[in-house]
């Protein structure tokens, strides 16, 4: 069981890595559309989050995420 803080850190690190951004940049611009959030980035993030946190995510719900907080919320529901 990960804490909400651990989930947020993991999500920000993975999204930052996939999007070639810093976690600070993601916090400053949390809308994923501001970054290179294309289908490859969606799937890459999905796979890395599942592996890193040992969880199973719902792809359709994950695709619907528009912000970093949306992703944190989705992952938190499962990881906590």
């Amino acid at each position, binding site marked *: 069981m990960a804490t909400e803080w651990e989930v947020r850190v993991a999500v920000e690190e993975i999204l930052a890595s996939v999007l070639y951004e810093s976690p600070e940049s993601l916090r400053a611009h949390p809308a994923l*559309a501001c970054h*290179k959030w*294309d*289908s*490859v980035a969606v*799937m*890459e993030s999905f*796979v890395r989050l599942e592996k890193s946190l040992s969880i199973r995510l719902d*792809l359709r719900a994950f*695709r619907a995420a528009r912000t970093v907080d949306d992703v944190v919320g989705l992952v938190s529901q499962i990881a906590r």
Partner: protein
Amino acid sequence: MTAEPGGYGIVATGHALGEPSNVADLAPRYTKDLQKIQDWGYRTFHRAGEGTGLTDLAAAAGRRALERAEIGAEHVDLVVLAMADIAEYLYWDPAAAVQGRLGSRGAEAVLANQACSAGVVAFDLIAGKFATHPEYRVALLVAANRVCETYWNRMESNTSIASDGAAAAVLVRGHAECQWLATEVITEGRYAHILRLPGGGAAHPFTGQGPGPGIVTNPFDRMEDHFVGDVRAMLQFSRQVRTNIRDVVLRACQRASVAVELVRYVLHLNDNIRALTSFAEDIGIEVGRTNAEISMDHGHLGAADQIFAMGKLLDEGRLEKGDVVALTSSGAGMHWAATLLRV
């Protein structure tokens, strides 16, 4: 490699488009995801009026190109129709219909149907025909798109906004300008099922009873169905889509003995701005040297995007003699294609 023995060049281009339509105004008619449409960046797309079919647009574009080339239709030896969408009728050859409409009696008519790659692939087909038919002097390549909205949602069935229109090029043997240099194609038939309409074909004929033929769903859902939700396999496929387009450009450059750095413009399918930006990065070219702006103003014309964009660049005087232009595409099949032209 020189362009001989199938060597030819573009003498003139022409096009015919549906009515320009404002994306922001019409988006709610096609999708609930208006944010997606905003992110895609399109400003305008084209819709043909009711009663205007694919071959109407094709014949109009072909006629315009021949007029601009000052070549009579009766002098055309080969008509190639490239299309990604569905023509007006089943059990019917739209290439022959276009030949007939143009009045190019006696010209051989050939249909190229490699989805959105057909317009790029057709250049190679024409080189082959010129090579095997020494008497052929003039070929007319017409690429056309006419969305059938019963089967295809213009803003949901792909990652682009689908438009109606056609573009044509008059190709003359031995013409020294806009010379064809090479075409390369990669085909991966194991992905053939990713883009298909479930019903209406011989496997599940539409009888008028029971469910209809269906509609082509969005690419992500289709990919998820094809790979049975295996996201790792989907990711691998998506990466391959991107590496294959880079590889096919490199192969075409190698075949033509052209350094890839010397390619001035890369004209891809009229995809959304985010996809075209990624594409430009993958190819190693500035997005300003792609068709990105043309795409935002016209939408995705199926197999006609590249010929249309090439015509625009020529008409606007943006190309200089000796410039190398790559026409590229990825399309259902899956096919990845690149054609090199030297202005």
